[in-house]
Every structure is written in structure tokens, then in C-alpha cells.
């Protein structure tokens, strides 16, 4: 059972290992308590709070042009709201926008595409249609996916989405 837990400290450790220093965020119920709030207090991170998630896509791209690594932390609804910015800025503009996306309402241990929640169910097909690489992070054993996903995004200058399947503790 323990390995089905998702520990926030494992995620934060891996984000730091990936060289991320800027967190661009809009609060999401899945990640606010144990990821965003500790990040706001962590001197290793500079958190940029945005009013709408598509701003974050462009802020991350500006940071990349300035030689900095960043992570956009948001809810899946914010990703849906940012589809045009992801199209123009991240995909066509070839920017390594790294997203950590909370899947609010996803049932534990159920694949996102099998969720009864419509918004959750459509996320992976939309990312596939857009050609955005994505990884499902549901348990602490999945935290090892974070560093290679981010390294690949920067090496290829392409976006990536890390889908957080349950609330970290």
C-alpha cells in the first residue's frame, strides 16, 4: 500500500534535481497543500503566481530564452484553457514548457482515460492530438519519471506534461 502513496517530498526533490528554480503557478486543489504551499516557503524556488494559466506558458518560454528552467504548476482545467498558447507558444514556437498538472477528481488507481470525470478523461487524448509528451505520476515510484521528462523537454525544446493522478501527502 505504501508504494501507492505519492509523497510531495519525492516530487519536490526530483523537480530540484531537474534544475528547476522557477515555479509558475495557479493553485490547484490536488497540488496546493503539499506542493505549492511548501514551494512558496522554499528558498530554492522562486514562485511566480499567475492569474491565468496561459500566461504561465509564455512566462516559462521567456525564462527559457533567458537561460532559466521553470515548471508550470496548474490544474487540468488550466491546461484546457491554455490550448491555444500551447499550440502557438510551446509547440509551434518550440519551447520546453514543462507542466505539472493536477487531475482533480480522478479516481485512485484508475487510468485518466478510464476516469468517469469527463474533463480528466479527455486530457491524454488532447495531449496526444497536440503531440505533447505526457507521463502519469500516481505513486511515489513514478517520481523517477520527472527528471528524464524534463531533461528530454529541454534537450528537444518541446513541451511535456506530468499528470498528477492523486493528491500528494
Amino acid at each position, binding site marked *: 500500500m505504501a508504494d501507492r502513496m505519492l509523497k510531495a517530498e519525492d516530487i519536490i526533490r526530483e523537480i530540484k534535481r531537474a534544475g528547476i528554480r522557477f515555479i509558475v503557478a495557479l493553485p490547484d486543489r490536488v497540488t496546493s497543500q503539499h506542493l505549492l504551499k511548501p514551494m512558496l516557503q522554499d528558498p530554492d524556488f522562486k514562485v511566480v503566481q499567475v492569474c491565468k494559466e496561459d500566461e504561465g506558458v509564455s512566462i516559462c518560454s521567456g*525564462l527559457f530564452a533567458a*537561460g532559466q528552467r521553470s515548471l508550470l504548476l496548474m490544474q487540468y482545467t488550466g491546461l484546457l484553457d491554455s490550448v491555444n498558447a500551447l499550440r*502557438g507558444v510551446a509547440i509551434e514556437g518550440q519551447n520546453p514548457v514543462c507542466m505539472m498538472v493536477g487531475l482533480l477528481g480522478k479516481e485512485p488507481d484508475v487510468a485518466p482515460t478510464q476516469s468517469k470525470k469527463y474533463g480528466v478523461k479527455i486530457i491524454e487524448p488532447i495531449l496526444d492530438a497536440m503531440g505533447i509528451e505526457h507521463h502519469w505520476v500516481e505513486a511515489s515510484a513514478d517520481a523517477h519519471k520527472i527528471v528524464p521528462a524534463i531533461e528530454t523537454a529541454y534537450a528537444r525544446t518541446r513541451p511535456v506534461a506530468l499528470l498528477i493522478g492523486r493528491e500528494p501527502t
Partner: protein
Amino acid sequence: MMKRDECLKVLARHRKDAIVVAVYMAAQELIHISPNDLNYTFTGAMGQGSSHGLGLALGRPDKRVIVLDGDGSLLMNLGSLVTIANAAPKNYVHCLCENGTYETNGSVPIPRAGQIRFTELAKAAGYRRTYEFSKIEDWDRELDKIIREDGPIFVDLKMEPGEQYPEDFRRLYSIEYRDKFRQALKSS
């Protein structure tokens, strides 16, 4: 009311080693009037220029970042005023090219064209200073001081189209020029 190309010529004289982020018509003309590897025109989607500029300003606090936004563009990303004021980069100058229309998309007027007090919006959002210019000599006289001031600063430039320049969207969104920009910024 100022001519846009004349405004940009003033900026070209005063910018020194500043990054200039520009969108739509201002970007089309900037690349002719002030060609420079530190021109950033790769904004990718309408409304996003101010947010790209924020990323650049936070990532390189040693460089002055001047954003040439559009009024239609800013209306599409009004929340960015609050985001920028909250992040409070001292090196950020947010210029609004206020022409009252969606010029690139057929010159249709923006909602409440000519009646929005953009400087009041920026002030209420928390920008440190705001300015409004409608005469080219005032813009020319004040710009040096504005570039040296602590930001974020908001400047409303009341303008209309001037001389025509050829449009080149491929150049504006070119990955090759974006990579050139990154290299130029790295060694700057």
C-alpha cells in the same frame, strides 16, 4: 497622436542594450526600424507578449526589458497586469501601443476604443509608475529617464499608423531568430 514608426524611431535611439519584446504591427515595424538580435517577436499567440517579457525580465534581472504591447492584445491578457505588478521586476517597462483597433485583424475597433484609461488599470494593478504620451517630443524627452527608473513601469503611447513597412510573419515567429536571440542574450 503619434505616428507609430516615429515612436519606434525614438525607441531605436534610446534602447541601447535593452531587450525589446514586440507584438503584431509594432513587431513588424520594429524589425525594420531597429534591427537587433535582442528583438523578441516570438510570442506565438495573441495577448502573450507581456507574459514573455515577464519571463525574460525575471530570468535576466540585469537586462532592461521593454515590451511593446497592443491594446487589443492587453485586453486579451489583462490579468497579466496583476501578475507583473505582483512579481515586481524592476527592469520591466510595459509600453502600450494604443491605436484603438485590432489593426492586424482588419482594423476593427477594440471595445470602448479611446475610452479606456489603461494607465489607471496599470496603477490599480500595482505598477510602480505610469506615463501617457501623445506627443512625440514628450516621448523622446522622457524615454531615457523611464528606461533608467525602477519598474514595473507602464507607458501608454497614443498612436496611429505611420509609414507602411512590409509584413513578415515568418520572420516574427522564426525559430532560427529565436535561437539567435538566445545566443545574443547569453553573451550580452
